[in-house]
């Protein structure tokens, strides 16, 4: 299929070209081609086990931590292949941050969680850190909730707050792309809505890729949608047209609930 359906005159933050991915001898992703548009929200949908997480983790090379993993093809970030030899994955992950399915704040204070990224990047001046922490918490609409409890352990927050804290932790290093792997699957509907609103606001500054198994969420919250099925990208396009006029039968079957 063509990777460039939809609004072709927009900028591509990421371009995926003939990308294959293997866990040992299991080929989990097969010949993927798609663009990720700058400052847009791209949703990845599909049944469980179809490779959405694997693909997302390929975008910042988190899969490198799995010893049997192997990638083929290229993923261009601002035109440069992130799988080229000599690419520094630490730098890559500072540019392409990630929020996980299960909220995973460190068992440390709220402040230390948000300050973690800036600190590992070498920023240690308390005054600057204070500013960054405040700004990051503001951008996830959490500052007023927690500004008096910054020393409190992040483990005491509700799951919804924890997830927003994790987003703040990512935002604090000012990445260019934020990857989110089913960020709302462990949250209640209210917290889910909060995160979705948040994504909208963040999309002004960041390019966002979100994996979701909720088609409603993809329809509500994204600009572009890719539909995965058994390791292949079946269809990719603008969210509205993909949901209203799917080009593939499989897509239609899935979004109308006949498959999946």
């Amino acid at each position, binding site marked *: 299929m063509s990777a460039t359906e939809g609004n072709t005159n927009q900028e591509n933050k990421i371009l995926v070209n003939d990308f294959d991915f293997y866990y040992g001898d299991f*080929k989990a992703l097969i010949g993927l081609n798609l663009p990720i548009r700058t400052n847009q929200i791209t949703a990845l949908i599909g049944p469980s086990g179809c490779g959405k997480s694997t693909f997302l983790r390929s975008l910042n090379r988190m899969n490198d931590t799995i010893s049997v993993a192997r990638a083929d093809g290229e993923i261009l970030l601002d035109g440069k292949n992130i799988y080229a030899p000599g690419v520094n994955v630490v730098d890559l992950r*500072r540019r392409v*941050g990630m929020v996980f399915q299960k909220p995973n704040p460190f068992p440390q204070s709220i402040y230390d969680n948000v300050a*973690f*990224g800036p600190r590992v990047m070498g920023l240690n001046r308390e005054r600057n850190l204070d500013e960054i922490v405040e700004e990051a918490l503001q951008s996830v609409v959490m500052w007023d909730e927690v500004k008096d409890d910054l020393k409190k352990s992040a483990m005491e927050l509700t799951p919804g707050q924890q997830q927003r804290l994790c987003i703040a932790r990512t935002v*604090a290093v000012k990445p260019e792309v934020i990857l989110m792997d089913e960020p709302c699957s462990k949250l209640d509907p209210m917290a889910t809505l909060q995160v979705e609103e948040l994504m909208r606001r963040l999309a002004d500054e960041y390019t966002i890729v979100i994996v979701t198994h909720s088609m409603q969420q993809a329809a509500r919250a994204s600009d572009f949608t890719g539909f995965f099925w058994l390791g292949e990208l079946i269809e990719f396009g603008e969210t509205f047209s993909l949901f209203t006029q799917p080009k593939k039968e499989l897509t239609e079957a899935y979004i109308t609930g006949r498959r999946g």
Partner: protein
Amino acid sequence: MSVVTPRQRVLEEHRQPHQIPDEEKHSTNRKERVIEFIIKLCGVSAIFIIALIFLFLLREGLPALTQVAISDFADARWYPIEGKYGFTPLLFGTLLVTAGAVIIAVPLGLVTAIYLGEIAPTWLRDILKPLIEILAGIPSIVLGFLGWLVLAPLIQKAGAPTGLTALTGSLILGYMALPTIISIAEDALYAVPKEYRDGALAIGATRWQTIWRVVMPAAKTGTVTAIMLGIGRAIGETMAVMMVTGNAANINNFQANIFLQPVRTMTATIAAEMGEVAQGSTHYSVLFAIGIVLFLITFAVNSIAARIVGKQSRSRGSSL
């Protein structure tokens, strides 16, 4: 290498018959209660026995306080035959040897644990970890013998007036504490959820930053326990120390390097002299008083560790 695609895997799975898990139908309620009772009983009796031991120590040891003036305990000499019960050399010996052992074993143990848990490939960890745990089982008398036979001559050759020194004791004790520290600290690191590591790596922390700033703090409870057990082992150890430290209960003539002088520990004193004292004599009571002090030191070490660990485990909100 034949490559499998998701399509083929799905087909494969459909070909295999589904397994229906056995259902647990037993009423577990009564069983639970019996088990709970037994566990409680064990817990209560453990506390009861410890209390009994402490009472026994107090009964045998407290008379020493009435028979020997407090100022005499401060004497620099332990020489019971002349009625000199100077306690300082023994305390000094124990603290010196233990401190030396801790200085050697804690950094080495933690670094090894980090290597095994975070850096070594799985196959190497699976070989090394059991090996290290076997080392923990070597009887202390064997290590004492090795220290006496191999280590002491080496230390003498290196320039010490005698090979039987505090340093020799520290090395042997450090070696004895190492497997415990490594094994428990590694377990603690291993138990840190992968999500924490992923979270750190995903915002651009290096592997070392992840270990140092996320994994180690998250494993604090276990690491502190490991260190504490290591210290406990060093303080309480008797036979090996008795064989290699020279047993000189004298702190009047210091060597320039305090680690290179013979010392005598509290445990070694009790072990060496308990067999020869008349029950109920002053000497006998004083030996028990030493036991009380040992008990208190161990208790203090535990309390400090609990204080360090406490903050964290409370916030985990565990309930029994």
